[in-house]
């Protein structure tokens, strides 16, 4: 039951006000007001067991997906996970200051990322390493953020993948503005139209900026897909701390569609994202997608989830792994040989090795970097600070101080 309104909100009418509905902790956990169950409205095309569920509404959006395509999606997810695990290990070994794992969210990210057309724009939060991959951002280009050498070294305009945004919710407004721009430039209205996708988490939905993004996008008919990865946790807080209702229903109050998809199902995510992006590029935006998934690792490498959640939960979600179900499906129904899997395995080892190699050899940024590119047109005050600092620092080179 994904619409628990009836028990919290009796209808007006004869008689005294209804008694307070006080769910017990157990009821909450059991999902009485939960935002965490799948529910009948969850779009799923591939079960955790790897079986294809026919769905007349959504099948058309993936009817062109060949076995080859599915293998590519599989490959994307495996490589993404491998990059994620390698980076996590690099952090453990002191090569990165921190890492933000996406483990478990590969399908949500690859499915939506692969739904994008080249002309589309994406605004990530900080966990979208899989989406970055689909936009042609090299995994090595992500590392600087976490090693502390830069704030992201890819070209956000060339890749059409904005820089990571760490302040929760900020990017939603930036994306809304960008999408408004697409519309103002007349780039919306047909199959070649442009669209924007914006990623944020379940926790982010509480932020004022996300709301304002919903208001702006709906008022300006912006071609914007709000892509909420509900991984069920905002650090230590479960989604119940952010909402009474499943998050996709938030859209109902703004007058645009909200839809919940199994975020561990790459095919369903692809289908729903394609539909949503198409709606947007044709001028019917915005759309909200809630990808229902699970953060299988810690929030970041500095987090300790054992303090706030039970390992049972993780075990249950392991059975819904986004990669495994595709693997099973490919083997059982798509005549995929071991060779393919071995090859993807090799490729991912290769990628991981390159990542490691790159990471270990990343140069330190020069001190002048602190002062560089703050302003397009410079600042005499800052320039003077830079000059004084560099002169001061030069005193140490072979100096005596």
């Amino acid at each position: 039951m994904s619409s628990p309104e009836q028990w919290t909100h009796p209808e007006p009418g004869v008689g005294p006000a209804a008694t307070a509905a006080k769910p017990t902790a157990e009821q909450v956990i059991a999902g009485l007001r939960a935002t965490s169950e799948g529910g009948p409205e969850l779009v799923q095309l591939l079960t955790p067991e790897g079986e294809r569920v026919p769905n007349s509404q959504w099948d058309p959006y993936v009817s062109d997906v060949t076995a080859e395509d599915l293998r590519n999606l599989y490959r994307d997810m495996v490589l993404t996970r491998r990059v994620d695990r390698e980076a996590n290990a690099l952090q453990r070994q002191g090569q990165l200051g921190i890492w933000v794992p996406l483990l478990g969210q590969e399908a949500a990210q690859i499915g939506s990322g692969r739904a994008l057309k080249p002309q589309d724009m994406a605004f990530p939060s900080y966990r979208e390493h899989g989406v970055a991959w689909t936009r042609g951002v090299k995994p090595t280009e992500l590392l600087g953020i976490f090693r502390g050498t830069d704030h992201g070294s890819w070209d956000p305009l060339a890749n059409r993948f904005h820089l990571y945004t760490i302040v929760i919710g900020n990017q939603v407004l930036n994306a809304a503005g960008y999408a408004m721009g697409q519309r103002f430039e007349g780039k919306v209205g047909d199959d070649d139209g442009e669209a924007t996708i914006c990623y944020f988490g379940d926790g982010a939905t509480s932020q004022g900026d996300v709301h304002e993004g919903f208001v702006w996008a709906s008022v300006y008919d912006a071609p914007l897909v709000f892509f909420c990865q509900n991984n069920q946790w905002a650090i230590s807080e479960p989604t119940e701390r952010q909402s009474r209702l499943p998050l996709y229903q938030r859209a109902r109050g703004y007058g645009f569609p909200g839809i919940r998809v199994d975020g561990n199902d790459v095919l369903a995510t692809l289908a729903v994202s394609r539909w949503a992006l198409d709606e947007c590029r044709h001028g019917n935006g915005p759309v909200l997608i809630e990808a229902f998934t699970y953060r299988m690792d810690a929030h970041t490498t500095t987090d300790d989830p054992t303090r706030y959640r039970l390992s049972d939960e993780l075990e249950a979600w392991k059975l819904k792994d986004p990669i495994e179900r595709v693997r099973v499906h490919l083997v059982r129904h798509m005549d995929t040989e071991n060779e393919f899997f071995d090859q993807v395995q090799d490729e991912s080892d290769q990628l991981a090795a390159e990542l490691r190699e790159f990471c270990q050899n990343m140069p330190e940024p020069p001190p002048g970097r602190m002062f560089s590119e703050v302003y397009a047109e410079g600042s005499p005050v800052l320039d003077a600070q830079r000059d004084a600092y560099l002169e001061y620092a030069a005193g140490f080179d072979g100096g005596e101080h």
Partner: protein
Amino acid sequence: MAAPVMNKSAESPRTSSQTVTLGKSLNLGLRAAMEADPKVIVMGEDVGKLGGVFRITDGLQKDFGEQRVLDTPLAESGIIGTAVGLAIRGFRPVCEIQFDGFIFPAFDQIVSQVAKLRFRSQGKINLPMVIRVPFGGGIGAVEHHSESPESYFAHTAGLKVVSCSNPVDAYWMIQQAIRCDDPVLFFEPKRRYYEKAELDFDAKPEPLFASRVLRKGTHATIATYGPMVKTCLESAAAAAEEGKELEVIDLRALSPMDLTPVYDSVRRTGHLVVVSEAPGEASLSSEIAARVQQECFYSLEAPILRVTGFDAPYPPSKLEEEFLPDLDRVLDAVDRSLGW
């Protein structure tokens, strides 16, 4: 810079010179900027049909259409946050914040995105946007309509901050700010919107980030900006009658500040009074004092004195005359400095 083409607006005939109010000047400057560059868009609350509560955007929506002059939803974070996205897309948004006290809902977007995105992207993204803020008191308004928040932005690295004090500067500075590839906070002295001056469209404007000596003097230096410039010029005129020649410098650029003319002046006068209506604590006036005492240590014949708003919330308007620095308080400080 060429005179603005005003073929679309019947009420403003093309002339090479015109007597205009500061508000009208901004309006003409915005119009010129919009004509010069189709990527310039104006956005904010009530900037369309109404032309803004101060009419600074009057007629722009009529002439440039609803896609270039946007009446936005009522939320300042939304205004600035979407302007960031529009700027990334290649637009040059000019955002109006209706009153100084309403910029705070947008503070996060300004500090975390507007100020940092260029640095974060190492120059791959420019944010050529202007945030217009009518600021300061003296208009008898209710709470939150008379704030002077410029120091918050001067303290924020990555932003540029300017303030105009007269119609001529207003006309040029708004256009220069819009052409600037950096984000500019543009503080408009709202109590001076109705001050008039002769505006020569063919003149060559000063650079945007340069302070200006508005009155030469030998006895003491006054550094000020925005609405207080007029107050200080009046003070200087009064002082002159008593034989004291005050040098008045309009800073114009608040971040980065151009203090060289102030240093030069203080080296000659030995006395500096800084005037600003913002509360003094941890402010631009503190910054000026801190820098001048360092640069002009041996020239100073008295400590640098500050005449500012008090470190209290802006009062109910019946008290604002007492809160705001005025001629008497400026002269009192000058006298204290000269008599040190």
